[in-house]
């Protein structure tokens, strides 16, 4: 995807750029800092977080549309996304399932009609921080493949499985389930219902960890075009210079 002419951004630099990008898109309407970190985590763990953003830009640039939350049971939420990108509301939505697990031992949220589902990755990292077990499952109708992110231990990153099989769950063809629990067996049972025994991960938590170390060591390669595209959005935050503004810098 990248070549020698690419820029290498530090992790901090990418996070700062994404913060400004999201701040430019939504001002302070969403938690732009955690959105930026979510993108950074994807990218630093080798999951093309920047690519996800770029592909989602037409939706992210569209003025906010309604999403609808319902609560079939006290620890199960259902979120209708009406075809929106998951990015702006993934963290606050995952919080609902995490809170469910923390208060009741188990929490779940099913997203319907959303895209950019890999952005759920940050929610698994957050679950680990709270010593929870978690999994995210979705079926990609375009690819005809089922994706599973499975956090088996709070000490590690999730393993990522991709199955060349159809598994329509309650989430449908363009949705996602995020499950969270204080005990491993609940999550294991849910994942095992789909994942054949012995199926090798597409990426292991260890590989994610190695990818992060490599990114920390050498930086993250970003094409000049992508860098310029993101900066063009981020620069909407900048206020033109005037004599008055220069006085505002202490002149």
């Amino acid at each position, binding site marked *: 995807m990248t070549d020698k002419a690419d820029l290498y951004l*530090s992790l*901090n630099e990418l996070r700062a750029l994404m913060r400004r990008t999201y701040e430019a898109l939504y001002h*302070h309407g969403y938690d732009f800092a955690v959105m930026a970190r979510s993108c950074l985590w994807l990218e630093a763990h080798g999951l093309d977080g920047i690519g996800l953003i770029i592909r989602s830009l037409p939706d992210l640039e569209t003025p906010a549309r309604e999403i609808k939350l319902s609560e079939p049971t006290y620890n199960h939420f259902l979120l209708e996304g009406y075809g929106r990108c998951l990015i702006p509301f993934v963290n606050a939505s995952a*919080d609902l399932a995490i809170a469910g697990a923390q*208060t009741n031992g188990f929490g779940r949220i099913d997203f319907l009609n959303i895209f950019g589902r890999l952005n759920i990755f940050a929610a698994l990292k957050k679950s680990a921080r709270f010593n929870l077990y978690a999994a995210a499952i979705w079926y990609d109708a375009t690819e005809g493949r089922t994706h599973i992110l499975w956090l088996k231990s709070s000490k590690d990153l999730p393993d990522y499985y991709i199955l060349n099989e159809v598994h329509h769950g309650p989430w449908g063809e363009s949705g996602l389930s995020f499950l969270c629990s204080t005990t491993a067996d609940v999550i294991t049972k849910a994942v095992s219902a789909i994942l054949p025994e012995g199926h090798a991960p597409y990426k292991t938590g260890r590989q994610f960890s190695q990818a992060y170390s490599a990114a920390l060591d050498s930086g993250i390669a970003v094409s000049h075009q992508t860098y310029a595209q993101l900066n063009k959005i981020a620069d909407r935050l900048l206020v033109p210079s005037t004599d*008055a503004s220069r006085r505002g*810098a202490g002149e």
Partner: protein
Amino acid sequence: MVMAEPHICDERLDYRPANVVMDINRLGTLYPYPLSFMRSLVRRILREKWDIKRSHIDLCNEGYGEVIYSITTPNDLFSYVVFSKNLDPNIRSDRVIAEDWDMTVTLCQGEVDAERLDFLRQNVPLQEKGRMDSRCIVLSRANKSARNFNYVVDRLSSGLQPDLDVMAKVGYLYRTTAVYGSGKFGMADWDKVKTQYPDFASPFAAEMFSCFLIRDFSLFQADRVAANRTADKAVKMTDAIRRYVGIGNATGLGMAPYLINHPLLVNNWIEVRETALARIQRDGAICDVKRGDFLCLAQKAMQHLDEISTDNADQNTINSKAKADMSILVDWFEDVQISAWYQLTEYAESHLSVEAQELLNVLLLELYPDLMTDLEDSLSLDEVYALQADMPVGDLKALIETHYDWALNIDYTDPKTQGIFWYRSEEKMEPRLGQRFEEPGAANEMLLGIGWYVCESYRDLCTFIEDRGRETTTARFVFENPQHRYITRRMQTMAKTRYGEIRINAIDLDVLPIHLLRCKLSFFGVGKFDPRSRMWVRNTMFQGAPLISDIGESTADTWCFPIRPAVSG
């Protein structure tokens, strides 16, 4: 499950309360102390006997060209590369928006060969417009204090030492105008520095080291230019005067957002300092030696205050008052045989200015370095502000009322209390202040008015509780109010700390950002504050500090409150 637990907290100690310590007017009076970053760094360099050499010198007679320093530490080898040029005085500016400088530098890991030097040559002088790589740790630049530099060179080339009266007015030859680290422009991330370069694994150690070597280069260059002018007549600056030469610094608004955006880190710095102070109050035994040391230090501090040169009338008044207060304190100390230091601090709190109270605290901190040695490694921490999604909103409301009462007490219906907004200028993203009701740009305001965001979230939280009850989770509140997610997780995190937030309304019409600057600079170890406006300050770093040639000779850490040396000029 709980993050950000204070790790240095000792409940057996009698800490000062948060409402006293975190008051911005008090934080704006802090002085450097033994755990300030440049003090810690110099102690480490001396203790570990770092080998610092100029391994490559390619300078013309006027001191322009390139110098490479090789730094061998117990753990690694680093290079420090200096590019010095002849700068048109008409374009010399301390502002971050400047485009050219007398001197540009980088600190990087490993040796610098010809290919790498060429890469650095093409990028370092460009500063923000260049691109570095992940082996680079710091990028910085400095400008000459032209009048002082030329004066020193003239004196040395005439066979004379600089006059100390002149040196006391401007205690440096160069001023740094920006010091970048932490992954800026493609450099190594802080996490990389922390894990791979243990020599620089404490806060801002690499940045401080860069300033330390700018100081060395400034002295080296002055000596060299003088010698090139009159080889038969020129003298070298004496070591005593060289030690008295620091490195100047100009700090503006760019530093202020850092303190507001890193409240956990700031809390930690403050808590370490307060822990040291509380230990001294409890364990700092008073004996005749300590009494004598205290009086010597107090005299030194008063002389230091006397020697600070600034055109800022308010700062001069503050310095004079602090000196007068110290004199009163010393008189009282000599009259009354105290048995514990708290008697002195209680007297100061009752009779003296806040500035003098904090000056006294630093004197006490300087008296007992052994009581804080173990705290030195506690100054950095991983900042995590995770939402506690399961917290009942009733608890969240109580938390805000307890820990953010200072913010709830601000009357934001008064336009003055939100008269300012902070924004990024299109000129190098320089942070600036705008008048909210008079200037455009408020729509792009930076999220720095923490008190305002607290009040907004509290208002919506109260409404939410009326609708949903106190037991509903915080997750539900922030899902329905995503604009409050950031401030909510921040408040939940900071409520677990001892000191919490800096108590400042950063968007008040009369806000004094300079207090934030001084607070941070004091932790850096910077002294001699010379405010140029309420938004930027000149100051001096490493004045009185050991020289590179002192490494291996001594490990004494006695350069606090630098004063002019007792030698003839």
